[in-house]
């Protein structure tokens, strides 16, 4: 099918150009007209069961589905005639007849299509006075997902997702008529790395995540777009958090990570590993600078950076290469890596900078890559050859050690690290998380997470993606960019450049 030809048609008196083969729903979107729909999803072929997207095509006696009608040259479509508005009311009235009045307790409230369309196209009094079908309201279907069969409108997006996208087919439709219901097969729950997308594509609150259940309301969530840092794919995500009300004034919590559409990288989906990253943004965070020599004492940034600069500068230039070591990681942005190269390679003349990264895992054949870092390509572009340090070598000659991140523990035992570090006079740790290495360092600095910083990652296909801060870091926590900038200053490497501190 050649998509190169363009078709011209009229939608609600607007002339629209659309590629050959586009359906009317998509073509209308191009013209800024949104046609309501439940069962249609751009990832799948048209299904046509919800009947919500009916429109008038001039010359045809019946209303037609916008999702499955392909644009034709010279077609005239209307999307808001009285007949169509009545048809939408009809669909809504049918759906609401058997739909439970759960809005006050339903997690989907505020982002529910049924609510949205009722507000816009419904606004009628209910006429259903019969007994509604009673169904199971909390069916655990696997991976922390809950199915509420009373809310389900049988759009079958979930069934089709598992059939066409993951190919794992865990959901089906049983029985028929009004008794039709969605479910899994005995002992075969939903179990794939993309299950979280089911919550996102469910237009109502039928499939929800136990992880999000009853925790907050959609309208409190602040949405910050960013790029997922948990593997090399760099999926477009949105981090959804609440700062302050209705939490406590100084509290911040990340409630959800969801997919953002990016045709070039992840399409419409993200994997469950990416979603699980939400806990990491909140839990077990390092929030204060601590000094081993003065535990409990408040340490200022300036003082802390001064200490590092002092130790480094205390080593004669000629010996710095041998006596100073730095361990970075591949979660640093391109900008941070460039800075690191300037400070450590050029500035201090260190021949090698070590890298300690999360250990690779299995690629899942779809989005999740084997490498579990977001910027391995960025590391190479910055001129580094990433390798792990040799702990014994470090212990033998190094006097000043800077460790960014806590991934050394994934490669060496705590005991081995402890032993090696014992032989090094000055150790500075920069970590987002509290951990067993903290007690080994002279100074521990809290670090912002990727979601809390801005910068550029280069993904596994070489695509550069620049992102902004999606959520505020805890108070007083900064990113590697700020730290390296201040360190550069402190080492006198920023002569002529704006003060990074």
């Amino acid at each position, binding site marked *: 099918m050649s998509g190169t030809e363009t078709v011209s048609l009229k939608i609600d008196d607007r002339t629209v150009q659309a590629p050959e083969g586009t359906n009317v729903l998509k073509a209308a979107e191009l013209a800024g007209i949104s046609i309501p729909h439940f069962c249609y999803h751009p990832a799948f072929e048209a299904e046509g069961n919800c009947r919500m997207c009916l429109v008038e095509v001039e010359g045809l006696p019946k209303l037609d589905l916008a999702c499955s009608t392909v644009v034709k040259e010279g077609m005239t479509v209307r999307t808001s005639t009285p007949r169509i508005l009545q048809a939408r009311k009809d669909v809504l009235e049918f759906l609401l007849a058997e739909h439970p009045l759960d809005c006050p307790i339903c997690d989907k409230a505020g982002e529910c299509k049924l609510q949205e369309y009722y507000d816009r196209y419904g606004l009628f009094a209910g006429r259903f006075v019969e007994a509604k079908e009673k169904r199971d309201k909390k069916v655990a279907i696997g991976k922390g997902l809950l199915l509420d069969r009373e809310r389900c409108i049988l759009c079958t997006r979930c069934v089709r997702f598992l059939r066409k996208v993951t190919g794992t*087919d865990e*959901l*089906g*439709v*049983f*029985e*028929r008529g009004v008794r039709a219901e969605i479910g*899994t*097969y005995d002992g*075969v729950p939903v179990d794939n790395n993309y299950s979280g997308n089911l919550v996102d594509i469910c237009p109502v609150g039928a499939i929800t995540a136990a992880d999000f259940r009853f925790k907050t309301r959609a309208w409190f969530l602040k949405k910050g777009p960013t790029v997922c840092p948990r593997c090399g794919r760099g999926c477009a995500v949105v981090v959804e958090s609440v700062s302050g009300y209705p939490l406590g004034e100084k509290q911040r919590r990340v409630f959800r990570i969801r997919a953002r559409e990016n045709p070039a990288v992840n399409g419409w989906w993200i994997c469950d590993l990416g979603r699980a990253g939400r806990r990491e943004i909140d839990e077990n965070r390092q929030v204060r600078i601590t000094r081993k020599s003065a535990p409990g004492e408040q340490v200022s940034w300036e003082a802390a950076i001064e200490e590092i600069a002092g130790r480094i500068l205390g080593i004669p230039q000629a010996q710095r290469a041998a006596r100073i070591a730095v361990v970075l990681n591949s979660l640093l942005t391109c900008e941070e890596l460039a800075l690191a190269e300037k400070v450590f390679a050029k500035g201090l003349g260190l021949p090698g900078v070590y890298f300690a990264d999360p250990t690779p895992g299995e690629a899942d054949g779809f989005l999740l890559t084997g490498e579990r870092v977001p910027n391995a390509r960025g590391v190479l572009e910055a001129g580094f050859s990433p390798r792990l340090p040799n702990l014994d070598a470090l212990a033998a000659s190094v006097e000043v050690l800077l460790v960014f991140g806590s991934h050394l523990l994934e490669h060496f035992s705590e005991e081995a690290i402890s032993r090696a570090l014992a032989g090094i006079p000055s150790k500075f740790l920069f970590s987002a998380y509290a951990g067993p290495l903290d007690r080994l360092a002279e100074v521990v600095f809290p670090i912002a997470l990727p979601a809390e910083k801005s910068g550029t990652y280069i993904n596994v296909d070489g695509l550069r993606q620049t992102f902004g801060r999606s959520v505020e870091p805890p108070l007083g926590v900064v990113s590697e960019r700020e730290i390296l900038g201040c360190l550069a200053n402190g080492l006198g490497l920023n002569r002529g450049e704006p003060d990074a501190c």
Partner: protein
Amino acid sequence: MSYVPSTATMQKIEGMIALYPERSAALLPVLRAIQEESGCVSPEAEVWVAEKLGIRPIRVREVLSFYTMFRRKPAGKTTIQVCRNLSCTLDGAEDLIGFLREKLHAGPDGTTPDGRITLETVECLGNCDHAPCLQIDGVDHGPVTRDRAAALIEELEAHE
């Protein structure tokens, strides 16, 4: 305990599969063959069929639960299915159903206390000029008057 059809049914099934350009298309006739032998299609049989046809068990259950002639649990040894669509209703189907229910002492699921006969109501059987009609194990009877119904039940109960 896993399911295995008899040799005869197995042969039937192989024959059926060969008739369709795609294995999975043979699902309905295969389920019929299994139900003919076992009286129903058990979860174990579902799994067996799924493997035999190269589809997932969930697809088998989707089909089983859609069509009313398939059973997932055994019914009585004999099933009586009475039509209660329009022509039969016009000719006294409701009365016939009530009469049969009473005579058989059928429980809420339609089965007699001794489990031998299951009485069900169904939609149009395509035998409208012999209304009110019913099927006993798929064999048509009609018009079924009260007397005829009583006689049929007697016959059934006489046979062991």
